[in-house]
């Protein structure tokens, strides 16, 4: 009956005044404006959070619209972060919103920037970015609310340095990889042929050749050198055929090369087929003749992605998609020709129909050669594109749980936070929660000491860091290793860099250095790893390197000098559960199920190559190239 009931009437009534004020004064960072992000932003805005920053590098795609409700059809191809900001602003003009269409790993988002937030929400879809934000929040000592969904499953976890486990305290499953020879010579499952179509054939014809590709590991070993050399010759022959791209004979040349000549050669290696069904070569001319009728109804075939195509249909799609890709490739070449010598490339994208059609047809044709079950384009899209099912309902539940945990963080009650899991297949529960886990004492990411380092780049040498700072000031002994990312800067035998300035070694503001104590002789054991985050500073005194907020020397040690960097504790029991590999189902974007490959690994052991095709994640944070193996999709027939 109050005529002018305030907008936040219900909030202040239920929260009570202190929490309502904390919510209004909070500065929030939300990383990711996708499925969870849209829900979360709506909830944050309507809960009354005062200031929200949104970072997302992605643009809007049609397949987002079934759940990312801040976006409409007319927003396709626009920045998620910017559109989300505008949409949310309309609903509560009083909230301060800032959007960055950028990668969260960009240097502008440094530790200092993270420190400016009350709390960070991860609403991401990939492992790499999650790990990065986890690391930054630990370094900045800002609480992080981490969440993820896959289909009906979902999970929420609060991460606070020194109190809870961090994202990396439990090892995550790494993407599946395949032996090279399984992919190139002895496929036995649809996935092998799909990987062949996507990571070998497509990239040989339209991308960087596999010899230069990071996806394939070709380190030599004498046993299989012969076969690898043969494969290399095949690739070379393929390059020659590539020259005829754009001519009418190109599809036939390519087809007969990979489905006839290479197959005949493979088949001639009788040893290989003693225990396997030998492959049957296909011939382009005769099939395309028989497929004349199918060719007329080509459009209809292309529309029908749910049905499994037959041989003729696959050949027709092979030819058609190859011609489409060739035209694109030629266009890219001619528009790039002035001045730029680099070859254009077309890489697999699950939402790029031309590449999807090509991979579907070429994988299925290979399956037909090897007597393997063929698959529909719909299924191949999922297997090749690492598609995680995603729906609005799960995201709504998870985003709501994130905000509930944030209230506890705001009140300073991190010890009351829960790890909450959606348990959709336990209809007697729907949700289950666990007490938060304590940090894993062996975690390489959070169980380390962290020190911020002010460095005068014009003067500081590695020697200043190692001798003056680490040994004299922090009390390290001789046996230490200093790493910058994956590269070694210093150890007892690697002393060449000592006289070099840090800048010359590629170190700049926001670089992270890791110091590892290898002094195993000390009866108290080596120190925990030390992570140094570098900040440039020109106003230092006589010393060119200075530590900020060095932890006070907590333990008085007999073996002077005393050091603030603690020694590794004896492993203690975590408060909740173990640190087994986290179930694949609960981390959106990281789903990798490692079943369904036993047979081929063991077959490869029989004198073949142990090499793996490495299907690493994309550098840009979307892991579209990781292959998901859902054992249901592969070995279970339907």
């Amino acid at each position, binding site marked *: 009956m109050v005529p002018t009931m305030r907008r936040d009437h219900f909030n202040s009534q239920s929260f009570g005044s202190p929490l309502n004020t904390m919510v209004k004064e909070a500065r929030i960072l939300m990383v990711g404006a996708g499925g969870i992000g849209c829900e979360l932003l709506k909830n944050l805005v309507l809960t009354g959070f005062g200031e929200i920053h949104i970072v997302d590098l992605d643009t809007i795609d049609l*397949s987002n*619209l079934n759940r990312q409700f801040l976006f409409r059809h007319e927003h396709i191809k626009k920045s998620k972060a910017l559109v989300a900001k505008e949409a949310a602003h309309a609903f509560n003009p009083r909230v301060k919103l800032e959007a960055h269409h950028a990668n969260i790993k960009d240097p502008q988002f440094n530790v200092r920037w993270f420190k400016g937030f009350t709390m960070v929400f991860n609403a991401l879809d990939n492992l790499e970015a999650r790990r990065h934000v986890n690391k930054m929040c630990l370094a900045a000592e800002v609480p992080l609310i981490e969440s993820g969904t896959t289909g009906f499953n979902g999970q929420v976890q609060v991460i606070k340095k020194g109190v809870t486990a961090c994202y990396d305290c439990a090892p995550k499953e790494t993407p599946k990889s395949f032996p090279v020879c399984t992919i190139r010579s002895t496929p036995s499952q649809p996935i092998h042929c799909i990987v062949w179509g996507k990571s070998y054939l497509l990239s040989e014809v339209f991308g960087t050749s596999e010899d230069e590709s990071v996806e394939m590991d070709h380190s030599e070993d004498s046993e299989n050198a012969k076969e690898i050399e043969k494969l290399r010759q095949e690739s070379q022959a393929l390059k020659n055929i590539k020259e005829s791209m754009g001519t009418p004979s190109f599809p036939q040349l390519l087809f007969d090369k990979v489905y006839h000549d290479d197959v005949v050669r493979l088949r001639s290696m009788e040893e290989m087929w003693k225990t396997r069904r030998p492959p049957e070569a296909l011939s382009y001319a005769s099939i395309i003749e028989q497929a004349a009728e199918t060719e007329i109804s080509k459009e209809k075939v292309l529309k029908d992605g749910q049905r499994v195509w037959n041989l003729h249909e696959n050949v027709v799609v092979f030819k058609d998609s190859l011609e489409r890709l060739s035209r694109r490739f030629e266009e890219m070449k001619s528009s790039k020709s002035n001045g730029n010598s680099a070859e254009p490339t077309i890489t697999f994208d699950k939402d790029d129909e031309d590449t999807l059609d090509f991979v579907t047809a070429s994988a299925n044709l290979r399956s037909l050669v090897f007597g393997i079950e063929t698959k529909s384009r719909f299924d191949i899209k999922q297997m090749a594109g690492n598609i995680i099912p995603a729906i609005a309902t799960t995201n*709504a539940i998870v985003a709501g749980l994130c905000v509930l945990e944030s209230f506890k963080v705001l009140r300073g009650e991190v010890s009351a936070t829960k790890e909450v899991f959606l348990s959709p297949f336990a209809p007697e529960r729907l949700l289950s929660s666990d007490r938060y886990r304590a940090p894993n004492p062996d975690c390489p990411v959070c169980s380390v000491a962290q020190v911020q380092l002010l460095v005068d780049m014009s003067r500081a040498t590695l020697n200043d860091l190692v001798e003056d700072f680490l040994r004299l000031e922090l009390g390290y002994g001789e046996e230490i290793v200093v790493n910058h990312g994956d590269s070694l800067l210093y150890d007892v035998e690697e002393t060449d860099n000592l006289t070099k300035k840090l800048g010359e070694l590629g170190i700049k503001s926001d670089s992270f250095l890791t110091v590892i104590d290898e002094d195993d002789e000390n009866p108290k054991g080596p120190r925990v790893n030390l992570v140094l985050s570098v900040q440039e500073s020109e106003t230092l005194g006589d010393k060119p390197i200075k530590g900020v907020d060095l932890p006070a020397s907590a333990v008085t040690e007999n073996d002077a000098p005393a050091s603030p960097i603690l020694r590794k504790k004896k492993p203690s029991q975590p408060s909740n559960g173990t640190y087994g590999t986290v179930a694949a189902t609960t981390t959106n974007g990281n789903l990798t199920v490692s079943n369904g490959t036993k047979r081929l690994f063991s077959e490869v052991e029989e004198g073949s190559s142990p090499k793996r095709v490495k299907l690493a994640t994309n550098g840009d944070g979307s892991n579209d190239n990781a292959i998901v193996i859902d054992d249901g999709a592969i070995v279970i027939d339907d």
Partner: protein
Amino acid sequence: MTAVITDQAPPILKGPSDKEKKYDRQLRLWAASGQQALEDAHILLLNSGAGTVGVETLKNLVLPGIGKFTIADNATVKHADLGVNFFLDEDCLGKPRSECCVKLLQELNPDVKGDWFPREKGESLESLFGHGHNFTLIMYSLPIEAESLALVQKYAEKNQVPLLSIHSAGFYSYFRIHLPGTFPIVDTHPESTATTDLRLLTPWPELSKFAADVTADIENQSAHEHGHIPYVALLLHYLGKWKDIHGSLPSTYKEKTAFRDTVSAGARRDNPEGGEENFDEATAAVLKTISAPSLASSVKEVFDYKPSEVEASSSFWVITDAIKQFYGKHNALPLPGSVPDMKAQSTIYVQLQNIYKAKARRDISEVLEIVRAHPSGKDVEVAEIETFSKNAAFIKLIRGIDSTPPSIQTIASQEFENDKTAELTMMPLSLLPIYLSLNATSHLPSASSSDILATVGKDVLGASDNQRLVEAAEEVARAKGGELHNISALTGGMVAQEVIKIITKQYIPIDNTCVFDGIISRAQVLRI
């Protein structure tokens, strides 16, 4: 019939492939059949109270492409609505809440039709139900006027429509599903590990022959052959030997572990690995796969149910009847036919797969024959029979709310009794007090805690002496019927999830009430 809004709608997506792309991520969960069911559905929301939780639920149904929805709501938009309801903006102030929400919800998905009620001021709810709509499912949010509730319950009862109630206030919420009669589910999506059915104790001739062939002269096989005998064949081989010695198959736990040792002892260990992977697999599979087939209690329940005359002619019950006969004859359900991955040579593995597939096909055609012989079995689709046969071990029947449900007093005594042990073992306590307190305000937007306790006390003895009930009542009283957006959004996600399960007839919906406590982020499902 009333008109459908068309103004300001974004472009309709063209062609089936665009639609497939838009719904790609969900088609992978409920497939084209589930999507079709959603698109054929018409959902009614009777919106009342603070009015957010129902709209949030609809949002999660409009996005995946429900066919049509209607909001019936008498409220006009006030300032406080704007702070809690995302689907209202400043321009909506003073306008009908139903119309404003429908328009903004519809923007989410141009493929969905939206409608609101009343179209004219003062139109009574009765006229909505008189319009000849065929609602697939009805939801109402609480608190609601008793007369409206009676009306909607009557309609749902008469037309056998699933009915859901939703109540969100402050940090608390609950929702309750009222299914008409029985609700059978074929496609329950069991976990893939649960679906392995190898029939090792009752092999059919082709399978026995296969096992005998690949284990022939097993002692003298080459290392490669021996190390690649699929574990299915290994187990059958050793089961045969066991039977020769013991006269029967291993049945007790003790016998099975002894059998496991026999299998393990068959592995060759004089190799660099010190064992064989296929034997490891066989050993590991003994306890899981060497057991007499037994009917899951949920399937038994389906078999034992006596469908009414109307129900009996539906394809579900016709196929159930056929499967039951099949089971009576073979003492086993139709074979699903899938084979898990295992160490084996490719050709041998494919052979094995084909043996299981062929048997599955034979079983299906037998079921098909029985179905066709049924008086109502002529038009049952083959695809439905196939799906049913493959899922036979996992079919599930959800019963509607009993005609004589246990009294609230009975449930409360049970829950509070459980709490006594839960308290000692630090287990979470029952959320029933939340349900009871919310339920006491079903028709009142705001009430004092003593009013709430008095109402609860009519059904539950000693309500005002129960500390947890008093606390819950105080929290509900404090909210004064106000919704927190975040709690309503979360609840709306859970409700929509169940609605999708019910409409697609896939996955198992909860039975029948879910209570959520947003203070401790916990949910509990109770059958009330």
